[in-house]
């Protein structure tokens, strides 16, 4: 409990420790802590910005998807339209072709009919004559009955 030189020793020790702390401990620690604080603040700010960017990108993406969907719908519609159109055209072509074939066939039939008729016509006189010859049993003078025969042939 005596006051003695210890008091001076303690003061000097105290001053030495303060100076040591002031020179080697405090500035290093504080600078590191402040730097970290700044880093964290920057990081938070960046995170905020990234969040905003993400939000924007999300909106942009949604917009693009919507646009794409619309375009797709449009294309599908167009395709449908085109398909219908093609079918219609094909139908039309088919009908025309069918008509054409039908007409050609009819013409052919008619031609053949008229041909057959011509042939028939040319043969009818002979047939009639031979028939009549057989019926009458005698020859018929072709020239004398030619007028009648021609009339018959024309009726056919």
């Amino acid at each position, binding site marked *: 409990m005596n006051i003695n030189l210890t*008091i001076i020793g303690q003061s000097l020790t105290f001053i030495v420790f303060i100076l040591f702390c002031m020179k080697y401990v405090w500035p290093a620690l504080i600078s590191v802590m402040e730097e970290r604080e700044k880093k964290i603040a920057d990081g938070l700010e960046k995170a905020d910005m990234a969040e905003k960017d993400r939000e924007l990108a999300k909106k942009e993406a949604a917009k693009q998807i919507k646009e794409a969907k619309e375009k797709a719908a449009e294309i599908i519609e167009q395709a449908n339209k085109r398909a219908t159109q093609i079918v219609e055209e094909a139908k039309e072509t088919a009908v025309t072709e069918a008509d054409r074939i039908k007409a050609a066939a009819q013409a052919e039939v008619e031609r053949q009919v008229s041909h057959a008729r011509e042939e028939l016509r040319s043969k009818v006189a002979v047939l009639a004559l031979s028939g009549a010859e057989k019926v009458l049993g005698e020859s018929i003078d072709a020239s004398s009955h030619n007028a009648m025969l021609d009339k018959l042939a024309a009726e056919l």
Partner: protein
Amino acid sequence: MASSEALTSTDYIQHHLQNMTYGKLPAGYIRYDGSVVEQDTWTMAHTSQEAKDMGFMAVHVDTIGWSIFVGLIFAFLFQRVAKKAHTGVPRGVQSFVELITSFVQNTVSELFHFNSRIVAPMALTVFCWVFLMNLMDLVPVDWLPQAAAIVSGDPHIYFKVVPTTDPNATMGMAFTVFAMMIFFSCREKGVIGFIKELTCHPFFAPKSKWYLNIVLIPINAVLETIALVAKPISLGLRLFGNMYAGEVIFILIAILFSVGLIFGLLGGVLQWAWAVFHILVITLQAFIFMVLTTVYMAMAFDSLDEH
């Protein structure tokens, strides 16, 4: 103290409250064993009386030793961390050290609004150093003295392990703070400004009644000087008183161990309870010392003209 001599409780307490003193004995002094010192001798004191008779020319080896030892622990730990500190995620010791540092920094920035390179490091030093010195109080009172007795081979050796229970330690720190107060006061306000602060405050007559100041200035000087001197004394004695009282109670509890099994058990429980309570006290005292140091520095930097 398990000594062959029959120790009374009083002896036990007194023995525990005596520092290991190394000092100068004057020529012609009669020592404890009856021998006479022929010339001025620096030696270890063997009795309290010898320590007392050494006067001012003596050093408490245990106080200085332990305070430097715990101070070195603080300095080594913090310096190592400060050197290795990185701005990444702090782990382990680094986060512990940074926790203390930021706590001190927050406290200082609340109390001290001036630019100074020394005040914050001083607050950190005060807080950690005083805390570590106080912490020695939690070591059971007989362990270290007993160990010292075994190591030195002297069963009677004085060994007080808590530096803050020695008024020399606390007053030494308080007077250092006081010296810095005066130094910074003079640096910030000038010597004239500092003297003005001591003499023209709190009572000062306006110019029209200047003659009143002749009476007021001495009154101011007395009041302010007392207030100024009271600061370091209360600062040092507060810490000393708290720690000394705590130490004495630990010693009293330790006496119970020699009484008997039942009292010994009671002593164990009491010691544990008091130690738990003391954790609060030592932290609080370290914090108070730090806060008051910072406040006194703020007062030294603060010039009255700004009011």
